[in-house]
């Protein structure tokens, strides 16, 4: 279960206006005395088109408000808590993939307009629900206890034709395959693993946002994954194609 106390730890009690509506997180807060927007999903949301479009609408609203006011673009803190995409025939029919692409495009617009973007994984971050906005952000932090994975092992077994028992065994020791925020850190897709304490979250958050502001342009995840030894081929192969 998601716990709303997380916002008090992040922003200080009374230091935010974050509200939960169904599976949507929306509000504002102050970090180091400056305003940030808070947008996300909650309670292991199965992200459907309505929720995805609520997230994209919130992003566009922040971009539009700051543009209209001529204000410094606010950082956007995304809260990712999703069990993945909603699995249904209706969502497929209506193009849930297109809704996710739209969310990614909105986050990319915010980035190009100067909004620093940061994802905090709270609870779980799974597959398509994570791809849509969590993984598009400039920086990703896993809060204590965060789970990151691709897919339910039963479904994985049926698709790969590998017996469930073998997958369960492999999942225990393979970083490229196994669920876990630490594996995603090693592969360069998670930047910070927050230690399991209730203290100092406000300072960590301020430091993470400062790190976004000072980060070099471009997508450095593969290079970082190579440095950390979790993803040794991606950067080299991409470079070989770039320079061939």
């Amino acid at each position: 279960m998601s716990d709303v106390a997380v916002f008090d730890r992040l922003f200080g009690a009374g230091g935010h206006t974050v509200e939960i509506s169904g599976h949507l997180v929306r509000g504002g807060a102050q970090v180091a005395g400056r305003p940030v927007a808070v947008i996300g999903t909650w309670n292991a949301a199965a992200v459907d088109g309505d929720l995805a479009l609520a997230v994209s609408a919130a992003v566009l609203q922040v971009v539009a408000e700051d543009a209209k006011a001529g204000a410094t673009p606010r950082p956007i803190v995304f809260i990712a808590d999703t069990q993945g995409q909603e699995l249904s025939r209706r969502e497929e029919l209506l193009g849930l993939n297109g809704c996710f692409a739209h969310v990614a495009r909105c986050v990319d617009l915010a980035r190009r307009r100067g909004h620093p973007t940061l994802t905090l994984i709270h609870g779980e971050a799974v597959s398509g629900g994570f791809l849509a906005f969590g993984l598009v952000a400039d920086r990703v932090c896993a809060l204590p206890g965060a789970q990151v994975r691709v897919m339910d092992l039963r479904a994985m077994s049926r698709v790969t034709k590998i017996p469930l028992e073998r997958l369960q065994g492999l999942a225990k020791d393979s970083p490229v395959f196994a669920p876990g925020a630490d594996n995603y850190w090693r592969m360069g897709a998670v930047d910070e693993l927050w230690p399991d304490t209730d203290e100092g979250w406000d300072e960590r958050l301020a430091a993470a946002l400062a790190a976004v502001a000072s980060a070099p342009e471009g997508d450095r995840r593969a290079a970082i994954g190579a440095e950390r030894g979790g993803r040794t081929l991606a950067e080299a192969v991409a470079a070989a194609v770039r320079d061939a």
Partner: protein
Amino acid sequence: MKIKRVSYFEANARARIAALVDEGSFAEFCPPELRHTSPHLARLDAPVAFDDGVVVGRATVAGQPVLLAAQEGKFNGGAVGEVHGAKIRGLLERAVQDKPAAVLLLVDSGGVRLHEANAGLIAISEIMRAVLAAQAAGIPVLALVGGSCGAFGGMGIVTRLCDEVLMSEEGRLGLSGPEVIETVKGVGEFDSRDRSLVWRVTGGKLRRALGEATALVDDDVASFRAGVEACLARPAPGRDAIDDLDVLLAAQDKLQRRRATLADARDGLDVWRSTGFPDPQAVPMLTAESFNQQLAVVQAEVRS
């Protein structure tokens, strides 16, 4: 000149490229001789491919330079692993330097390669960022969807980031494959063995009616080529000339209105009915040409 018909659905990735681009113009990057294979598949005793299931390179189409990536659906369902994904990302990054007329993504993929699931998921995220960066640099990115694996999972998202999506009726586009939905939610939610239902829910005619595919073409490579040539003949989308915020606000509105209009839709038949096709039941039997003619008529009626 008589042109031999090559079924896009049945051709493999290399045959698609050969029939799509100007003869003799294709030059491959990281060809099979360099043996960029997946160590993760090898670890699972699964077969590897010397191109890791995707062919990337440069060519010309009607004399215009393009970069292209073709996924091999016959190898692990075209699924994206670490090497496979890095090749596509590298190609898109190269486009920012080379400034081709377009990048063509011949998508034929079920999404993330589950044997190396984490690396595949991250690779897809990197491809998404690279598509957006190429577009921001003014390079159009086109998706071609007509293979046996369709465009699903993360590659379904990537496809919908593209400027143009060319599909055949046989092409399928979505997020979660019918098999996954059936496994988790039951056969009552989605019967993955009902092939006509699968096509009505994910296929090219449904996606074209929704406006997600920008062209419906016949299942032969020459038709896809004609579609690509038509895209290349249009002026590239002027990224600087438009206010992206207004474009995205309009897209937001369109997606929200679709969900309201089609609140009870469960089948492509409901979409074709709502679009205005006079006989929705007959739509699956229409040729691409007849479908496009009827769609033009009903869209003209909506506008008038």
